[in-house]
């Protein structure tokens, strides 16, 4: 079977044709710094699909029935793990150790995460897996939402715990990006065409609730992990709860450039600057 797969998993899965449904994936856990648009530095821990630190955990795209051989290497100084509810459970991985598991993938949208603590997930050890239906050629875009309170990142990095009753984030990111970098992220900024369907997966990896509003269009909820009874709703504003995702579909009927943003308008700011947070646009060609 000929189909497409991204070698880096950071760009669309359209770059390299592969002939096998057997996929080897190596994820390595590193601690490092996430840079914000204003050059502020926040300590994070992430999974990387290369041998170097990545500022955000990668978006992993597969196809239904793929046989995945996943090796997770822990290059941090603390114990971590890797889990996908209902799909993969590698368990905990000691510092400097690695674990390999083989799994046959089932179509769906999943969150992968470090099950050892909510603090590690807050710091960045979670990401999105999309196992597409076989033959699904619909263009997809992906948003991993996350908010950041620098003082909390510093405290948690030093062994502290999260008290959400005091949570007051300062930065808001999509796929680890803030400011103009969001618009330069090909997986986040939506490019579409009139009369051509696109889909968007929004997954919330943060602690806050986000309320994503679309200008120009209502979108159809195809799948909603928080409440499946909401599937089929046609809306312009979508609550995305912590740990959950929404799969949305639109077929544009008019060209133009339309903003998409969190309508908690504090989340479109960052570091006291408007608008550097959860906002980008969809650009629809005639």
């Amino acid at each position, binding site marked *: 079977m000929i189909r497409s797969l991204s070698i880096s998993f950071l760009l669309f899965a359209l770059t390299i044709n592969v002939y096998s449904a057997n996929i080897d994936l190596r994820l390595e856990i590193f601690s490092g710094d996430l840079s914000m648009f204003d050059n502020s530095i926040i300590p994070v821990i992430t999974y990387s699909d290369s041998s170097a630190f990545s500022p955000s955990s990668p978006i992993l795209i597969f196809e239904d029935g793929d046989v995945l051989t996943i090796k997770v290497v822990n290059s941090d100084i603390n114990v971590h793990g890797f889990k996908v509810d209902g799909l993969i459970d590698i368990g905990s991985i000691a510092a400097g150790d690695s674990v390999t598991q083989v799994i046959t993938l089932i179509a769906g949208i999943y969150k992968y995460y470090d099950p050892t603590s909510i603090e590690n997930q807050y710091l960045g050890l979670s990401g999105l897996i999309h196992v597409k239906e076989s033959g699904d050629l619909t263009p997809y875009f992906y948003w991993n939402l996350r908010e950041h309170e620098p003082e909390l990142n510093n405290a948690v990095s030093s062994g502290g715990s999260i008290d959400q009753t005091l949570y007051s984030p300062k930065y808001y990111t999509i796929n680890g990006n803030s400011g103009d970098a969001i618009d330069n992220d090909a997986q986040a900024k939506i490019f579409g065409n009139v009369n051509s369907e696109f889909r968007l997966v929004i997954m919330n990896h943060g602690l806050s609730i986000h309320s994503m509003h679309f200008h120009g269009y209502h979108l159809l909820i195809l799948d909603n992990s928080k409440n499946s*009874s909401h599937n089929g709703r046609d809306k312009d504003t979508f609550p995305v709860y912590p740990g959950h995702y929404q799969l949305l579909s639109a077929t544009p009927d008019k060209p*133009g450039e339309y*903003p998409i943003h969190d*309508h908690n308008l*504090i989340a479109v700011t960052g570091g006291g*600057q408007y608008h550097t947070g959860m906002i980008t646009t969809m650009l629809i060609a005639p």
Partner: protein
Amino acid sequence: MRILLIISMSLLFGQIAFGQIDYTKLIIGRNQGTHYFHDGDSTRVFGFTETLSEETKIPGPTIEVNYGDSVKIDFWNVSQGAPHTIHLHGLDVDQQNDGVPMLSFEVEHMLHGYYYFKAPHPGTYLYHCHVGSTVHLQAGMYGLLIVRPSNGEMNLNWDNGESYDREFSLLASEIDTVWHNDTILDHEHDPMMPLMVPETFNAQYFVVNGLSGSQLNDPANYMYFQPNEKVYMRLANLGYYGVRYIFESALNARTVASDGRPLPNEQLGDTIEVLPGERYETFLQFGNQSSSILTVEHFNLNTLEVSASQEMVFWSSSVGIDEISSVSIYPNPTDDLIYFSDSPVDYDITDITGKAQIKGFSKSSSLSRLPSGIYLLRIEGRTYRIIKN
């Protein structure tokens, strides 16, 4: 000059695209209003009005149009300072009429800007300024927009939809007065430069239709109904907190639409959670009750904790409240004892829902064991509203 040219082009293209205009609405942008809270404090606000003489209020006037109408919003900016726009939230207008600076046009002081749209599916929508939107929306530049059925029928949710006897629209938001300081509101405007804003938002006032605290359950702001009426609620949120509208279970709340579209399946449940930018439309079925309480919770989207829980009152028009000034009932409000007669009389005190609290034969009564709130005192066939601090 560039803006004038763009506005002229907008007018030209708008007229070409939408042909004959069925409805034109003048909306005026202001930036020198004062909003008064329930505790006597006040703060400066921006806002929208329909005339130059009227007071700037939060929220702005509700715009009502009919399904299929070609609508022209004539936006006149009469406010020195930053320009403003009107974003037609949820109406799926084209880019030129979307009200987003940089992607369409903004309207400078004393200029008009024109927005054109074809009214989409009947339902509940919003409008607000999108210039420095975090600041200008918080400042008060927002309101509801309702699309009625194509024939303009007032008691029908959409063409061939479900009828009702009465409707109420509730638009929730909050106010953090820090964001209303002149240094924030009178910001420099350069669309090429970042707009500096406070790093956090911590509301002191949680409002519905601009009302907070005791204003929400003041009889002047009761939602009056008749027995056995079917009521349609338009529930919206344009704040920076989440909101839960919690109805009494006896009303059998049934939510049928969100964001201006019918739900594929009705949502049954007394609690309707509305996040920023969302709208829901909900049927309530009243019976013979004299009143009903609507609890409105604002919850922090970061801590997920409830920041305010306030009550609004549905009140049956068939139940009268006697003027307290006609008798000697004092002190009211009270911390404990309330006196209501020179000689002992039969009396009973209920909560606002009619649930019995205290009954007796006396010249006075102690309310010390009752929680703070509004109660009804009945003596000699008359009903009086009393308040326990």
